[in-house]
């Protein structure tokens, strides 16, 4: 599965697009994000708070459409990920 990451997340991934291993079945956005964090542990802070809840300003698009943590995505889906807002 291909993820396009924006903002300071690229400081963690080192690139704008990353691939994460996929199973053959659909999975929720939340589970995709968890596996992304397994691959890039330093991304955790930018996506989840200390209790493991997804931060409110994190934005995910699946094939260009806004998605919720529960949205199911196909193994071939293109995911766009914008981390929690920072700075000012």
């Amino acid at each position, binding site marked *: 599965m291909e993820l396009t990451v*924006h*903002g*300071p997340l690229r400081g963690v991934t080192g690139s704008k697009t990353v691939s994460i291993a996929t199973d053959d079945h659909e999975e929720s956005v939340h589970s995709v994000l968890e596996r992304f964090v397994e691959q890039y542990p330093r991304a955790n802070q930018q996506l989840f708070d200390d209790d493991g809840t997804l*931060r409110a*300003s994190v*934005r995910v698009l699946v094939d260009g459409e*806004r998605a919720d943590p529960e949205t199911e995505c196909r193994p071939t889906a293109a995911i766009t990920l*914008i981390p929690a*807002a920072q700075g*000012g």
Partner: protein
Amino acid sequence: MSQQIQQELDVDQFTLGLVGPDQEWAGTVADGGTVRTHTPAGCWGPMITPSFRGGHEVTRPIRVENAEVGDALVVRIKDVSVTSIATSTGSMAERDEAFGDDPFIDHRCPECGTEWPDTVVEGTGEDAIRCAECGANASSFGFEYGYTVVFDEDRTIGLTVGPEGANQLAENADENMALPENSRQHPILLYKPDEIPGTLGHLAPFIGNIGTTPAVELPDSHNAGDFGQFLIGADHDWGITDESELEARTDGHMDSNDVRPGATLICPVRVDGGGLYVGDLHANQGDGELSLHTTDVSGTTELEVEVIKDVEMDGPLLLPNESDLPDIAKPYTDDERETANALAAQYGVDTVSDAMPLQIIGSGATVNEATDNAFDRAGSLFDMTEGEVRARCTFTGGVEIARLPGVVQLSMLVPTEILEDVGLASVVREQYGL
């Protein structure tokens, strides 16, 4: 608003967090004239005031005589003075229910759902900002780790205070923040954070957000390649679908601590009249702005403006004070030139090219991308390959972080001949007395 061109223009009107071509003008200043501003504090005040559409409270755009799209606006910073007697700052925590997509932009009351609600202040503390409709705490931010700083009368030092001092300063927060009459923000001193008490800091005030109006409307805090990233995919009015739309930015929010008295900024003109705007003064800040926020203060600036016709610039340039330049990017001395001429004769070098310092601002998602952006901007301005830009910046310059995650200043001693060609030689000469 009178269209009369003024030699000296005082500006006391601010926007509600937006910059762009539709904002009302503050007035018109003569080419070669002086602008004076008194601006309310940046980030934190607007961030906790839900009627704002962006993270700062900058001036309305200033029209500059003769400035047309494709020109460069030279802004010489004559003075920056802090008027607040205290401020609070630190790192932020967003409040889940108080916004749609972006806690800086699309505010809404968590209880009644009013968008960009009017609010009133009840008492002090992080729950003091109340929706005028329903009374709920409507602010979209709290502190993750916050501190309150009080300044001495001459604004040379700051001292962080504990709960007693923070309380005292919160009681007269508006007055202590020195908010100008037309400001619409709530003062951050109301939140009275009190970490790291007893810490003494040196003050070195500078302007955090200063630039020309972009051709498209943007939240003022997001007019930069790093914060602009948070507009991607957003559903609010300023959301963008593709990163390439950020090319419209003018990087006003650059947070470089070198944008201080004595420095000169050169900004690309993207709307007729230039639309210079100013705000987000900081009492001090180390390179990188590591809490992502710093000592936001109200304060005054005095700026001299001048238009240079037809300069092809993709982003702003900075001519810092000579003392702020990297050592190897400082102007050549006569002794160095003489020594170089002797070497040139010995090794058959035809001419020793004269060169002068200049910094190219770059911004992007990360410092690496910001540096690439600065390479691109330098390459297109000076018609150099990336290899040549990298070589010159390695041998006669360097890259410095203005702000993390992604604003840099790329220094280079630029051959004078090239500066002549692009029309910038005289402003650089004047800056460094060459």
